[in-house]
């Protein structure tokens, strides 16, 4: 007898299919969002899995549409922020991996944008990732990050200003 499954709103039991749908519909996006925010793909895997687990535990009222995506993204950002505060974060790769690193001479190619976003300070990086990658609205970002919408707007503006010189070879057509 499995009595550990949450019950969805209305009394219908949550099914394994719902979990599969969450992972299929949002898994890649959440994983890459976490990677962009944490700047560490290995840590992002842990964060994405934790996000799905927390979502499954409290799932019930979110059915499709942007609200579900916003809700999942909010969970992911909480998980990522917790990880950034964890003392384990600085030990993730181990000193043997980080000591004596040399910058490669490999030319920058398709990863220019990736590294430009990764170079942003955290508070700018998260609004850029949520706006440009997750394609959330200002209001949705405000909900996901628990900051006022005005603050989101200001951070986005400043993030664009920082990105502009790093991506000066790109066409930049936003107002």
């Amino acid at each position: 007898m499995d009595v550990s499954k949450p019950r969805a709103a209305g009394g219908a039991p949550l099914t394994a299919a719902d979990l599969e749908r969450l992972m299929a519909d949002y898994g890649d996006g959440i994983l890459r969002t976490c990677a962009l925010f944490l700047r560490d793909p290995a840590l992002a895997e842990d964060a994405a899995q934790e996000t799905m687990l927390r979502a499954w535990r409290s799932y019930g009222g979110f059915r499709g549409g942007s609200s579900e995506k916003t809700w999942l993204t909010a969970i992911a950002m909480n998980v990522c922020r917790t990880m950034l505060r964890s003392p384990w974060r600085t030990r993730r790769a181990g000193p043997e991996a980080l000591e004596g690193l040399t910058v490669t001479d490999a030319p920058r190619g398709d990863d220019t944008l990736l590294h430009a976003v990764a170079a942003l300070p955290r508070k700018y990086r998260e609004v850029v990732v949520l706006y440009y990658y997750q394609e959330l609205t200002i209001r949705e970002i405000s909900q996901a990050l628990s900051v006022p919408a005005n603050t989101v707007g200001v951070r986005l503006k400043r993030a664009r200003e920082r990105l502009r010189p790093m991506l000066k070879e790109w066409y930049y057509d936003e107002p």
Partner: protein
Amino acid sequence: MTNHRMRDELDTALGGLIFSPSMQERVRARCGAEPPPRRVPLRLTRRAAVVLAVCAALAATALAVGPTLWGIIQGDLGAKTPYATEVPALCEDQGIRLEVRSALFDNKIAQLYFSLQDLTGDRLDGDTQLCFGLENQQEEGNDEMPWNSSSVRQLSYESESHTALFVLTLNGWSTKNRLPLQFSGDWILSGYRTSRDYVMAREDGLSAVPLPSAAADNGTTVLLPEPARVAAWEAMDPDTRPVFPITAVGFASDGKLHVRARISLEGVIWSDIKARVYASEEAGCGVYYGDDENVTQTVVEDGIDYRFDSYGPSDLNRLMQISVEGDYSVHSAPVEGVWAVNIPFEAIPSRDIVIPGELRLTTWVKGETIRADRISLSPLSMTLYCSDLQRDNWVKMPNYQALSVSVYLSDGTAVAPVYVAGNTPWAAWEFSEPIDVDSVTSITIEDQTIPVP
């Protein structure tokens, strides 16, 4: 720059990052096994003494009579059996004996086989929760993390001898470790079950209008059961419906948020049931936190009424979910005690091979590479160590699982080990059968061959 173009470019750059089948499987496994009610906190001191909580819900494999414990261990180890060492470590407390049976330290992966035996009763079974810790007192100057991850798996339960057998696996074991590992435990629970019922505030139509309430024997206000909720639960499949269902939820006549649950403890030996509200700090904010503090419990006719003293009608817009969650056992009460053993570290001899030149491996990110520095070969596995793992603010993620690896022996045989585990700076592949390390002539990774002198 348009939204869509940036998204497309980032997706291209990160195209190798996918929520893989193995990740999905790990999520499914965790969703199917609720965490136990107690955890040993993880701490890391400057002297690198690390305590790792190992708590897992375990599924039994059937064993009434048949192979001895060592036979079961051999079956699990397979071809690795000759390389495992017996570990003379045992302790007893509260009538339960903890005995480490065997250990295998192979480069970055360690496996410890241990048993629990009830010497005085029948408190163990094939569905046992364990709370144990691992502590490694590292040598001065060794700041390396002792391991990356761990898992515990129950192999068997033998009812005649009241003995349960487990295997603990540590991935990313630090090969610099030389001091004994302390394996300790403080809590055992068998017959573990869990139940959870919840209500979504908005979707369920929770309102600020007080629900029918009454005074309990002690004078406190409690909710009366809502007939519709009770009927809905009773109509559910008995095998899948919540064991501790919510029979009423909302604001009572005392102006506080309540949730009432039917708690039937027939057949339950031990239980730990909590009510929790998930709320945001501000109305309309999409981030919610679980809160199970300031909760007053009142026993009612068929269960418990929980009053959340911090929540009133003015908080309605902050509420997302109210839940009643319980862990319980139908077998025995938890056994609390002190079990601790030291496990000496004895690694399988291995051979280090420095990779000459500049062997570069691709990562998940297009155009990005890392450097492969050395290989450690044991009869059981091959471990690859890499460097150049950070670029500016970005930690690279090698795609070790996709690498094609072959090991060539002096008799012309080519062996293809199977990837088993890895983290950012290392990855391990296991041989299906032990090899003679001295007979290895070369190793090929992708299309690059490394001669082995």
